[in-house]
């Protein structure tokens, strides 16, 4: 039986991990490779519960290095393949993902961020932002969607496969332990019923015909003997990544036209930021909200535009300046003051953001 577990549009109550598994089935993913790690375990649990009914496959590997490389293998065999991990697993996966980047392989990786180091909390953080956007010995040629709601987890899991197979760069869905474990309503649906095209995978290896006679032989290299050779290949990737940048970038903003304070946040923290901004605007304060949905590529033009219309901006995150590194890089040359609100490893509430915003605007503090 192919298709989706629940026909039609259905309002449901789920945890984030389950949402990812159901969305992967709806995206017609073929196989998941994985190794258990909290807080993403239920992605695997639910995928394996659904897999037999929908002719899907699953392979539990011996670790995340292997999970990453086997996902690459699945992709090269022409399967829509994905994996999911967190924290230390994400560290190990940077090795295979750096290879996938150079080989332009459409792997999909779901990350549920937790607090570092590897033996630290299994619960939550936003400490895997730099790791996920620029990890590995490469140039960060990957696409990273930072989700904020269960609906987005569903929508962007489906989208991640399309983006990966359209552009042939690794795609990460970056969420966190809170999103993984919390429960909220969302609408699940069959993308095909909604007219969403699902890009078909194609095999890199094992195509018909005699290589070198009927077709050019496939030569998928992960080895570059000289610096110049690597440089040349990278130049191609640079051009392609920059070409697709503006097609791929996504953001959400609110009231950024003319503000005393612009609040910048991503992921689950952006929910608190948005709520705080809506409330403060209701009080008549000139506060705006900007949320990059893609952390890589960063929506640079829109971000610069929003920041150029504010007196100062505040970066709010559950890390000690990881989002702000990406933001400041995008804003190079703009002379606007930045105020940090860093809460590494813990959640941020709308009340905290509102309190700090009032200090900054009403009392004129810095």
């Amino acid at each position: 039986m192919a298709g989706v577990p629940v026909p039609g549009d259905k309002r449901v109550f789920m945890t984030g991990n389950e949402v990812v598994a159901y969305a992967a089935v709806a995206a017609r993913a073929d196989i998941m490779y994985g190794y258990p790690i909290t807080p993403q375990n239920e992605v695997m649990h639910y995928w394996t519960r659904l897999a037999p009914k929908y002719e899907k496959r699953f392979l539990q590997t011996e670790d995340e290095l292997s999970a990453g490389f086997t996902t690459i293998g699945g992709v090269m065999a022409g399967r829509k393949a994905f994996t999911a991990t967190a924290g230390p697993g994400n560290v190990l996966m940077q090795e295979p993902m750096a290879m996938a980047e150079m080989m332009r392989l459409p792997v999909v990786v779901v990350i549920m961020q937790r607090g570092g180091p590897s033996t630290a909390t299994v619960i939550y953080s936003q400490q895997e932002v730099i790791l996920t956007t620029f990890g590995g010995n490469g140039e960060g040629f990957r696409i990273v969607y930072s989700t904020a709601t269960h609906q987005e987890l569903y929508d962007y899991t489906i989208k991640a496969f399309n983006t990966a197979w359209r552009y042939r760069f690794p795609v990460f869905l970056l969420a966190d332990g809170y999103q993984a474990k919390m429960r909220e309503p969302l609408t699940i649906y069959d993308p095909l019923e909604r007219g969403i095209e699902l890009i078909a995978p194609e095999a890199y290896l094992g195509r018909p015909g005699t290589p070198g006679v009927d077709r050019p032989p496939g030569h998928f290299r992960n080895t570059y003997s000289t610096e110049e050779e690597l440089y040349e290949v990278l130049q191609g990737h640079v051009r392609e990544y920059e070409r697709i940048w503006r097609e791929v970038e996504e953001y959400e903003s609110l009231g950024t036209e003319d503000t005393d304070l612009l609040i910048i946040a991503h992921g689950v923290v952006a929910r608190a930021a948005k709520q705080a901004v809506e409330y403060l605007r209701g009080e008549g304060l000139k506060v705006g909200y900007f949320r990059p949905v893609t952390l890589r590529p960063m929506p640079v033009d829109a971000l610069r535009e929003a920041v150029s219309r504010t007196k100062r901006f505040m970066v709010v995150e559950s890390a000690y300046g990881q989002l702000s590194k990406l933001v400041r890089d995008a804003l190079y040359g703009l002379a606007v003051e930045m105020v940090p609100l860093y809460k590494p490893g813990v959640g941020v509430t709308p009340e905290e953001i509102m309190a700090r915003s009032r200090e900054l605007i009403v009392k004129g503090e810095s």
Partner: protein
Amino acid sequence: MKDIRIVEAYVGEYASGKSEVAINRALELARTGRPVTLVDLDLVEPCYTLRPLKKELEEQGINVLAWETRDAVGLGETGNILRAEVPWALRRPGHVVFDVGYGVGGARTLDLVEGIDQEPLFRILAVVNTSRPMTMTVENVVDYVRNLGPVHGLINNTHLGDETTADIVQQGAQTVAEAGRRLGIPVVATTAVAEVAAVIGPVDCENNPVRVLKRYMPRAFW
């Protein structure tokens, strides 16, 4: 109810609402004036469910057997762990409510409780939310409950979080009741938060009593 000792275990699908239903049941029983013990039997994620609520619940007069943050070192994925008092919970006086870890594996942890097979009124209650895709249809619920092992009653805990309406709960009541008929297992109650319960009335459309729930779990980690 004053003289009867109630011993109940809440089992069911992941995120079906076991902890919420168990907490509310324990508080309801505490209002009878007898001691009540609420036991966290989740061995895999023991410090994330009841633990953040332990103090608050104890202030309301129930005895909570759950890990505290300062005790919780290396829980979860480092291995299963049982709090030392938990196997002896039934030696305590009064009512005992078990909040069992999720799924079929969770239901089996009840075997670890000393004397559970000798409790005359011991009941295992399966909590079902038909807004959860795994338990959305009558067939799903029947298959799922069959896998849980012995179950003495079903609880219709159908809801959609903040979007819950009386209609959603009543549709769940119908699905759970039909599943119960096919399984030969009675439905013990339907649950709903006060605003929704007020619309439904004292019994649901299947004539099952409505237990009013106060939501504690949004304050827990998960």
